Structures are given as structure tokens and as C-alpha cells.
């Protein structure tokens, strides 16, 4: 059953070739078996949630429910009612939310079965999953290497086929980069497509929930069930419900693919460069027309992002003060000490650093020069994309300038931040974007990024699916987890 698509699994369940318990049991066993080596999950459930099984069975009995009985894990920043939700932080090590995130409840409604909670960089801040209070995650392709981050646990779990699908979140690349480094498909939809209710915030104007799975088709099926307006999130878009349509043929004729030549030619890693061109040429071979586009302000994106995201984070994380929930220090003789000690004990260093940068960028005297300036740069970048999308239907380019690096190789410092240079621009503009596997270099996976027009998830997923109809990179699995 391992390696089957969601549609194939749904077909087996519908034909009663296996039961929901059997299917979920196979994956449950894999979660148990591989979690020690991968560290992909912070929490593995000791038993299935009977309510989820009932819902799945009820839907299955009604027929035509593509997700009923399909197991998954949630990134551990989606609140799960009654199940520990840690954000990979000591701050929330024992936090059991009294409510479900909208993403969680919608996927429950669709009949999906939760197997556990995925590891991540603490509060989604990081690109290597080394910043987790519960230990690093290993890349299933090479356990010495990082899976990327911050949704590193979700990516590794899918890559090791511990689950067929995992939820993730992407603020500046946190779905796409680990998807690329782990050789799976991951989509960050348009900002506002999926409700943020119950998703523990890092940077509210950038955070977006998405899906990580083997294929674009699997991602599309799950994303459809997750998305749609939510009255509990004022920023969720009032768009008509979106439903993924899988293309019938691999024919890309009529499609205009934009290419940012500088991004690709500037890649230092020749292997990634070659694979990226090869993937784009594959699209051309399937009928797509290639056009050069330019994003003149994109090189400012990383700087703007590292002002805006920390600024929002510094405020969002103020609620973790040790009083009403979360870690409280054992030694505080006054309120000041209670706050400072609880927060410094609860948050890891990377989180504290970003909180401080954000507090600084918002403080009087710096607000205009940094925060406001960064918001203006954000506008310039967004306008660059608007201009580009007048010529093309989507933009294709690299996800990460490098393949998975070794643990500890660059755990601190600015070099880590530069790893997000290709993913951050689309995040700032709020555009839908995905990463799909396009082959291996030095034995490690490489991803191609597709960026679409605002609220046009369909086009990028369709192109990825058409590519996957003609190639098998997305079906590769690491030998150790076969």
C-alpha cells in the first residue's frame, strides 16, 4: 500500500480491498518504526481517534469521498483539541489546546485520520528543522542532513512514507524549501485561501497553511478540502469554494511559463542549475511556451522579510508570558521576573533573536526607516509580480540555492536566511506557489518552484500534475524507507 496515490488508496477503500483501520494501521506502524531515525514526529498517537474513524467510515459508506480514511499528520502548530500542540517549543511543551484549528476540523470533516503531530523549527522560525526543542529531524535521503524547515517534520514524514500526506505552513518558504530538500511536492496556497484560525501564528500577514504529499494531485485533493472562507479568520478570502481539477492530459500547449533567468543562471550549484533547466525544458517539450520575465526588486525580499516577519512575530509571541498557558518559570519573585524568565526559558535562541529584531524594528525612531520602508519594498515586489503575470501564466524557478546541507553546517548566521531568497518574494506578494521534485544531484533531491497568480492554485498544480504524468521523480523514495 506504500507509494500509492490518494486516489488509488481511496479506490481500494471503496472497493473494500482493505479497511480504513488496515490502511491507517500500515502507516501507523511506519510512524512507529521510523520516528526514531527521522525524528519527524513530536507526537505519535497511541490510538486512532474513534470519532475520526466513524466519520471516515460514514463518508466512505456514502461513496465518492476522496479523502475518507486517508491518514495524515499535522505540523505541530495546528491546534488539535485534546492533543498536545507544542510548536516545537519548551514554551508549549505541555500545551493541550481546547479547540481544533479550522484546517484540522475541515480535514476531519473530509474523513482524514490523524496519526500524529509533525516536528518543525520552533514557532516555524528556521530553514533546517534544527531549531526544535524536541530534537532535529533527519532528511530521509541522508540522515546526516537536514530536511529543511520549518515544516521539516512534515516533509521528512512524507518522504519516508510514514504518511501519504502532511499539513505544513509557509511564511517565507517553510513548505517549499523542505519539500524540495526531501523530494516531495508541497504547495503554499494564496494568502487567505486557507483559514489561519487555530494555527499558531508566526507572522500573521505571511503565514499560510498548505499541503505536503508525494504528488501534485494528492496536494490538490487535500488543499480543496482545507480551503475556503472561515468566519473565524478575518483575513481568509471571500472566494467561491475552489475545487482541484486534475488535468486529463499532459498537454501544456497554450501555457506561458515565465522564467527568471538570473535566478537560475546565478545558481552556484551546477547540478541544481542543470536540473532546473531540464525541468523547464520538459514543460516546453510538453507544449509550454517559455518567456523571460524579470522581478527587479526580488533581491530586496530577504531584507524586507527579516524586518516584517520578526516585527509581527515580536507582537504575536507576546501572549506567551507564562500566566494563562504555557511554560511558567519556577523562580520568580515578582511579575517582571515571571515574564522574563518564563519567556527566556520557554523560547529558544532563534525565536528570541527574531522577537528582539522585531521589537527593535517597531520601536520609536526605527519604525519609519525599517518597518514602513519594508512594507513599501513589499509593495514593489508585489507590483513586479503583477507586471510579470500580464505576460505569463506562471513563473518557474529554483526553490533553494542548495541541496540539503549537513546538520550543524550552518545552524546560525545569515547564510541560513539567504537560503530563502527564492521563496520569500512570492510569500511577500501572497501568491500561490509550490515545489515539486525534479531529480537528484549528489544523491539528494532538487525541487522546482512554480509561482501562480493570486488565487490561481489550479494552474500551478495542473502544470505540476502534467509534469508528473510524464516523469517519475515524485515517486522516488529513499532506499532506507522503502
Amino acid at each position, binding site marked *: 500500500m506504500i507509494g500509492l496515490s490518494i486516489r488509488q488508496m481511496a479506490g481500494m477503500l471503496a472497493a473494500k480491498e482493505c479497511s480504513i483501520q488496515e490502511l491507517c494501521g500500515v502507516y501507523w506502524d511506519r510512524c512507529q518504526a521510523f520516528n526514531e531515525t527521522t525524528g519527524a514526529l513530536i507526537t505519535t498517537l497511541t490510538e486512532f481517534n474513534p470519532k475520526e474513524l466513524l466519520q471516515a467510515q460514514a463518508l466512505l459508506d456514502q461513496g465518492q469521498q476522496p479523502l475518507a480514511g486517508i491518514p495524515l499528520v499535522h505540523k505541530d502548530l495546528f491546534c488539535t483539541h485534546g492533543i498536545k500542540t507544542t510548536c516545537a517549543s519548551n514554551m508549549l511543551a505541555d500545551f493541550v489546546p481546547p*479547540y481544533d484549528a479550522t484546517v484540522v476540523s475541515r480535514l476531519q470533516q473530509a474523513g482524514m485520520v490523524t496519526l500524529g503531530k509533525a516536528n518543525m523549527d520552533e514557532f516555524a522560525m528556521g530553514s533546517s528543522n534544527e531549531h526544535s526543542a524536541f530534537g532535529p529531524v533527519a532528511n530521509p535521503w541522508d540522515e546526516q542532513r537536514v530536511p529543511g524547515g520549518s515544516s521539516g517534520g512534515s516533509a521528512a514524514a512524507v518522504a519516508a512514507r510514514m504518511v501519504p500526506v502532511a499539513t505544513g505552513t509557509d511564511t517565507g518558504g517553510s513548505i517549499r524549501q523542505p519539500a524540495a530538500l526531501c523530494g516531495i511536492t508541497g504547495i503554499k496556497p494564496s494568502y487567505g485561501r486557507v483559514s*489561519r484560525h487555530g494555527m*499558531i501564528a508566526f507572522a500573521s500577514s505571511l503565514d499560510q497553511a498548505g499541503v505536503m504529499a508525494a504528488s501534485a494531485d494528492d496536494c490538490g485533493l487535500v488543499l480543496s478540502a482545507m480551503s475556503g472562507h472561515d468566519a473565524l479568520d478575518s483575513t481568509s478570502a471571500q472566494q467561491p469554494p475552489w475545487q482541484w481539477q486534475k488535468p486529463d492530459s499532459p498537454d501544456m500547449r497554450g501555457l506561458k511559463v515565465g522564467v527568471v533567468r538570473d535566478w537560475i543562471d546565478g545558481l552556484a550549484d551546477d547540478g541544481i542549475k542543470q536540473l532546473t533547466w531540464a525541468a523547464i525544458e520538459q514543460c516546453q517539450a510538453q507544449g509550454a511556451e517559455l518567456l523571460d520575465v524579470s522581478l527587479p526588486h526580488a533581491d530586496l525580499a530577504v531584507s524586507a522579510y527579516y524586518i516584517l516577519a520578526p516585527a509581527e512575530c515580536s*507582537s504575536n509571541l*507576546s501572549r506567551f*508570558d507564562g500566566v*494563562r498557558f504555557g511554560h511558567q518559570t519556577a523562580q520568580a519573585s515578582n511579575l517582571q521576573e515571571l*515574564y522574563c524568565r518564563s519567556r527566556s526559558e520557554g523560547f529558544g535562541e532563534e525565536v528570541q533573536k527574531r522577537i528582539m529584531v522585531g521589537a527593535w524594528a517597531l520601536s520609536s525612531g526605527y519604525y519609519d526607516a525599517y518597518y514602513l520602508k519594508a512594507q513599501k519594498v513589499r509593495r514593489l515586489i508585489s507590483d513586479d509580480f503583477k507586471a510579470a503575470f500580464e505576460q505569463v501564466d506562471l513563473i518557474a524557478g529554483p526553490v533553494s540555492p542548495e541541496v540539503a546541507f549537513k546538520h550543524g553546517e550552518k545552524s546560525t548566521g545569515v547564510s541560513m536566511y539567504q537560503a530563502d531568497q527564492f521563496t520569500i518574494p512570492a510569500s511577500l506578494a501572497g501568491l500561490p506557489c509550490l515545489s515539486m521534485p525534479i531529480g537528484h544531484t549528489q544523491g539528494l533531491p532538487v525541487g522546482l518552484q512554480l509561482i501562480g497568480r493570486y488565487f490561481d492554485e489550479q494552474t500551478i498544480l495542473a502544470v505540476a500534475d502534467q509534469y508528473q504524468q510524464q516523469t517519475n521523480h515524485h515517486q522516488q523514495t529513499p532506499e532506507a524507507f522503502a
Partner: protein
Amino acid sequence: MSQQWEMVIGLEIHVRLDTDSKLFSGMKASYGASPNSQVSFLDAGLPGTLPVINQKALDYAIRFGLSVDADIPPFTVFARKNYFYPDLPKGYQISQMDDPIVGPGQVVIETEAGAKTIEITRAHLEEDAGKSIHDKYDQYSAIDLNRAGTPLIEVVSEPQMSNAKEAVAYMREIYTRVTHLGICDGNLQEGSFRCDANVSVRPVGQQTLGTRTEIKNLNSFRFIEKAINHEAKRQIKILEAGGQITQETRLYDAEQDQTRSMRSKENANDYRYFPDPDQLPIQITPEMIAAQRALLPEFPAAKIERYVGELGLKPDDAAIIAHDLRMAEFFEQSNQHSQAAADLNAKFLLGEFSALLNAQGVALAASQIDATAYAGLLDQMANGSVSRKVAKGVLDDMWDTGQAAADIIKEQGLGQISDASALTELVQQVIADNPDQVSSYRGGNDKMFNYFVGQIMKQTKGQANPVQTKQLLEEYLK
């Protein structure tokens, strides 16, 4: 010590909006529930929760803005004010900074020197904080978050008041507006209307402002006057001794009648305001504004003019009634249902009826006699059935029994005898029975007239209509 000082006062008034639910959550917003029983996950700042704005709070803020002739912008934006405090669950308060819902406006207040316009800088929407209870434990402060997230508008004035009386007059004017608008319950004890006063002093004639202090959380008209006067005195004393005023937040202690520095606000905070990324800008359409404009009530000044001009009330009576929203409502309702002159209504309402409410210790809003029943009693006076004196007794009985005025008068036989033929018969009888007195009167003893009135009143137990009685006596004694 011949230096003359003048005060400069600006007020920030916090008005709690009378909505059912909180500003950003669907939790009940009422006052007085058991601690922490009206706290949603959002109100407690739990991670992952998001704010969704209450339409009615927007409407109420717009309505207030229109009532002070303020500009209402085409859109408004919420911002976060960041600081740590135990009763502030999220570590920030959702408030407004750059694009408040109400722009510049003004009100006119009455001062000893005549009418004065006070400019309103802005008014913005914000969520209230919870409550810290310091006297429950020796070592701990206890936190109740019921109030956290209840909607407020903060009305900020220009520093244009030059003494405590003006500050009180301004505060009263805003109080009258928000209660007449129906957007605030006006309950001072419960903190529905409270204010922070920014006070500074400067030598008369000096243009630049002195260093100000902010006195927090004044929730009575009396305290605000005392607090401001006290604070100004304190500042003058320091300045006259050659000292300097520290810009700080102070707390007024009503029992000791003094202000003291608030330790919790010692470090002037850098609030790091920025637009709330959990919310988009809110559009304020011309339709929203028009809908609120249509709901603007008549304010006291206009009411007084109408009561005096159209209804013939004495200006003093009109003013008292017009400034009391409930009383004005009651007055107008009863006036509609009754044939009695409005002036009589006003006098009886302010006199006998108010006395009864006082004696019962009940507010007009909770009166057991409603405006229609009260109108029934007015009619009995107007048609001469009972005198104002008898009416007072009837009113007491109405309160006790809940019966209609007409029924009480009938049952107890209190109605005045206004039947012309019955009265004529009585008058003729009294004249026939007292021939000596008649000849004395006719001989020029005018005082004897009252003897006849007295005889008739005696026989009717005071129920004879006095006006008619006099007319008939004059007629038959000629």
C-alpha cells in the same frame, strides 16, 4: 507667591459601548458575571485565535462621531499597542493609531464665561483590558478577564479646558451624548464611562505648555474635579518651590484626596504601534454613515428649546427633564397619552412623582407606574376630577396597588363634584340654611364668602370643584 497660574486640561474619555458581545469575540460582554466566566479563547489570548470585528461597535462609534460633528473617514484600521501586563492577555491591546474611526469634531460646553467650544481630536475603537484584583491575596494579584475585549471608544479632546469645572462640563456633555445616543449604559460605578485627565499648569500669559501628568481612571464627576484641582495644586507647589514636574501617570485616591505616581507605569513604554496584521482595513460606506445619521436622537439643547417654545414649560423644568434621558422619554410619552397641559405634567413629574421615586428609592426606569398610567392620572387632574393635592394620594395608591387612577378615584369616591346641577343644589341649600350670613355678606362683609365655600367643602368632604363652587356662589349670592 504673586505668580498667577493657569491650568491646561485635556481628557481621554473611555466609553464602554453597550453591545451584547465583545469587540472581537462572540462572548457575552455584560458586567458583573462571576470571575473569568465570560472569557472566550480569544479573550484569554490563546494561540491561534483571531479577532473578528463586531459590526455594532463600528456603528456605535460612527453614531458618536456624527453626534459631535466629526469627520468619518472612508476606511479605518486597527493597530496593536504592545505592552506586557497581567490583565492584557495578548501582550498587546487592539486599538487604533493612524486611521481612527472618528476624526476631528467638537462640542460646546457652558462655562462661567459663557459658551465654549472644545475640540475633539479623534475617537477610536479599542478593546478593554481585564481586571487585576490586588486585595484578595497578600502575595498575588488575581486576574479576571471578563472585561477583556469589551468594546470601548476613547474620545480624545484637545487640551482646551482651563479649569476643573470646564473639564467636568465637558465630561458631562460627552456623557449626555453617549447616553442619549443609546450607545453606552452610562453606569459610572461599573466603569462604563471613565476618563484619564492630562493636567499641566503654566504661568498666565505663557504660550508653551507645561509638563503634564496623566491621572488615570477617574469614574465620577465629583472625583475628576477634585483630582484635577489637587493635581494642579501639587504641580504649582513644586514649580513655586523651584522644582520640575515629572511626566508620569498618577492615580487618584479618592479616600485620601490625593494623587500618587503609578509604579506599574514607571517606565514610559514604547508601545510599538503597528497595523494589526490579523485584520484588513474596514470600509465605512456612505450607507453605514447614513444609517447611523438617521438614528441620531434629539439632544438636550434642542429638547429644551422645543419644550419651552412648543410645550410652554418653564426653562428650568425643561432643562432638568431634557438632560435626563429616561425622564425626557417618560415625559414625552405621558404627554402624548394625556390631555393635560405639558406644564402641569412637568411640574407634577418633577414634584410629586420624583418625590415618590425618591421615597421608594427607585429609578424612573424601574418605576412601577408607567408613562401611560401616569398620563391617566394627569387627565384626572386636567378634567377637574381630582385636585393636585388629592392626586398625590392617588399616585401613592397607584404605586401600591397597580390600579389605574380613574379606578382608584371611583372606588374611593375621591372625584371632585363638578356636576353643575348637583353643585347648584348644594349652593342653594347652603344659602337657604344661613340667612344671617347671607345678609351679612350682602351688607358688604366680603370675608363672609369664604364661610360659604367652607360650608360646601365640609359637606362634600373637600370634593367640590373649587372653581365651579366659587362661580356658583358668586352667582347666587348677588
